């Protein structure tokens, strides 16, 4: 008879951290495999299908990259907040609000020359996201309201605001809930590889900028300190409330950019399905990447492989649409569960 015992760890090395994370993903895959097997499909065939559909052709690769663009934005959004120990569960709502605000300009504003038009849309998208994030920020700072709840609930409000316009003033000519198509001036250029568009460049530039911001600037230092200990940050002279507010604005702005990249990069209109939960998947991306901007890119691509793969499983193997969600959920569970191994040594002891 063996018994499991736990011993507290002093610290965990980066290598251990990586091994544990990869092992957790592996275990998640095994669990997903079991789930798929229960649906009457050979899990190995399914895995092959996932990999093949998202990486097996240049079309597949380009579509995977297309899905990774909003994920990089939302991943960065959640990560920057997590860096100062704030949970932004509201990237989804900020994405919608940003997209709605940008769309409003396309509909009501003048059509500007392309570079100018896109600049305005990007700025409006960021502002939209920031406005939406400022609500939970103020609630937290003024009334100490938990940001997990407020950001989450505001998602539904933002989505319903978008719905109001889609079913109301912006309704399409054929009475379907989507706006008219954007003029060419309001569309990101394709990069010559499938539907991959130039918002990818914006995303990658932001990755570099945020990395520098976090690790090589005063603001980044303040951010790291605030994230580590509020009391110590206050003691160091940092205005914590201001810090939190700024972080929320930045986080919201990044999520808002995900919205713009969807409406101006892929859909060329606003409708109800511009996001397939990118705001929520961004949480997994940020958590997996330990908030490091560069690693966010890797995990954004990793998760878009799964998202793309799940789509094709649904189409080709008649698996339920829930497979994608189940997959993400199991990965998140495995990752959260693996925290145990980072904080404790697990030993097996033989019981006499």
């Amino acid at each position: 008879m063996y018994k499991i015992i736990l011993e507290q760890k002093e610290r965990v090395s980066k290598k251990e951290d990586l091994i544990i994370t990869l092992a957790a993903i592996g275990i998640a895959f095994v669990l997903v495999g079991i789930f798929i097997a229960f649906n009457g499909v050979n899990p190995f065939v399914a895995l092959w299908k996932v990999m093949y559909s998202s990486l097996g052709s240049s079309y597949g690769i380009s579509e995977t990259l297309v899905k990774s663009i909003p994920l990089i934005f939302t991943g960065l959004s959640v990560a920057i907040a997590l860096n100062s120990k704030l949970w932004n569960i509201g990237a989804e709502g900020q994405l919608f609000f940003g997209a709605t605000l940008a769309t409003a300009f396309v509909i009501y504003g003048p059509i500007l020359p392309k570079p100018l038009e896109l600049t305005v849309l990007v700025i409006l998208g960021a502002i939209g996201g920031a406005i939406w994030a400022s609500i939970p920020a103020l609630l937290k700072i003024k009334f100490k309201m938990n940001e997990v709840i407020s950001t989450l609930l505001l998602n539904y409000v933002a989505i319903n605001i978008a719905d109001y316009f889609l079913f109301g003033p912006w309704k399409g000519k054929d009475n379907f809930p989507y706006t008219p198509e954007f003029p060419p001036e309001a569309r990101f250029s394709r990069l010559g590889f499938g539907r991959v568009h130039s918002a990818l460049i914006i995303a990658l530039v932001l990755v570099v900028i945020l990395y520098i911001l976090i690790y090589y600037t005063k603001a980044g230092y303040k951010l790291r300190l605030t994230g580590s200990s509020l009391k110590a940050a206050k003691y160091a002279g940092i205005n914590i409330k201001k810090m939190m507010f700024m972080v929320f604005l930045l986080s919201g702005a990044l999520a808002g950019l995900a919205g713009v990249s969807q409406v101006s990069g892929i859909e060329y209109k606003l409708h109800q399905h511009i996001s397939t939960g990118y705001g929520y998947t961004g949480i997994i991306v940020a958590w997996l990447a330990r908030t490091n901007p560069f690693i966010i890119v890797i995990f954004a691509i990793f998760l878009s492989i799964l998202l793309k793969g799940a789509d094709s499983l649904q189409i080709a193997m008649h698996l339920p649409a829930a497979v994608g969600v189940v997959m993400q959920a199991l990965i998140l569970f495995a990752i959260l569960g693996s925290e145990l191994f980072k904080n404790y040594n697990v030993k097996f002891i033989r019981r006499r």
Partner: protein
Amino acid sequence: MPDNKKNLLVHMVGINKSFYGNKVNTDVEFTLQEGEIHALLGENGAGKTTLMNMLTGVYFPDKGDIFFKGNKIIFDFPGKALRLGIGMVHQRFSLVGNLTVLENLILGHPDNKFVIKIPDKKKLIQSYMDQYSFQIDLDAIVDELPIGVRQKVEILKMLVREVDVLIVDEPTTVLTKQEADNLMKILKNIANSGKAIIFITHKMSEVFQVADRITVLRKGLKISTVDKTDTNPRELAKMMVGKENEITFERPQIEIEPGIVEVKDLFVNSDKGVFAVKDLSFSVAGGEILGIAGVSGNGQIELADALTGNRDVIKGKFLFKGLNVTHSSPEKRIDIGISYVPGDRINVGVAGNRSVWENIIMKVYRLPKFKKGLLLNNKKLKNYSEEIIKKYNIFLPGINLPALLLSGGNLQKLIIGREMERDCDLYICVYPTRGLDVGAAEFVRKAILQLRKKGKAIILISGDFEEILELSDRIAVMYEGKFTGIFNNGEHSLEEIGLMMSGCSREEAAKEMGNV
């Protein structure tokens, strides 16, 4: 050798433990008998707490066995030690802050049924309090209690669990003299009822006050176990530090520069929203140490927080070098030369899971010399940290590792080094040597005296009587948010200061002592 007439409760044999290649315990043997108070003596980092963490199953020995009442024990679940009857009161308390005392005491108690009858529990706990003469308000919220009381709650929690072995880790570091004496009485009571107590400490006086036997650890090695009657402080000190050293502090006369600190009619709120500092006025000159003595929880922390901008001033004024900074931000105060060595060094003084270097630069990263265009010059900042580490002799595993891996003494050296290097005009030091071993405490006290020599104004808030008397030029005694006396060091005896700490005015205290 263990006394054969008494029952052996605990026997630890050949205990080895290392962390990341550093040996913390090497072949340690330890015995504990029924009804004894066994002092575990040694400097910080000697391996005392680690040894006890193995006895309570927090860590597992790399090598060696632990016997309890003659049986070898394996800690196969976290609550095992407590279930067996071994309880430990840690230096960092393990109470749930937003629950009441009662809730904390019954939390996780094995006798709890699905439905807990609060009145019955209250009666039960009252009986324990009567037995060991505790006086605690069971309905108080733990976070709102002073540290001294919280510690009693911790001890009571163990007694309610009916432990046979009670381990207390440096229990008096947070207490005043009177509170500590009271604690000693409580511990003796507990030992008299047949329970064994392991008393982790580095204070010699306490050892001779309560211990029956003493085990001395040094650098992870057991030096010796002796009966109190067979030894003397000098011998123990020698075992503890490896050499005999007598510490003397010189406080030479220096010229003072008045007007660094002027506090007028200051009122500050506590967390509960009542006045913690009431109508306080005082001044401190450059080259002067003002020692503020008092039982913890009499407004000292609130005063320090208010002077450093970490707490709002309700009424009154604080002038620093003639400048009104009553409502200035902490940042502004840091910039104009007010330094703060906080009492809670682990949670406030450093950001524990950030690296050592990030903690050292906490107050200087904004300086222009560390800028590189729009960015921070991380390399220069790291070099600056390396210099401080060298200069202040801070022992650490690595500059990029989290600060919480540092031992208490080295952590305080880091904080002191960080603050001294900034060359401020006012230093506010709160409990600067609390929990430090002899060597580190000496370092800190010498550093404070050096600041004085440089002509800095120093406000020293301490619960350590000796420290206040050794270092201060003037002494203020704080009681319920007011000074019951403020006078030159030497004007009043220890006993008179003690009386002032419990609320007597200077005149009353002098009269009281005069009558004796």
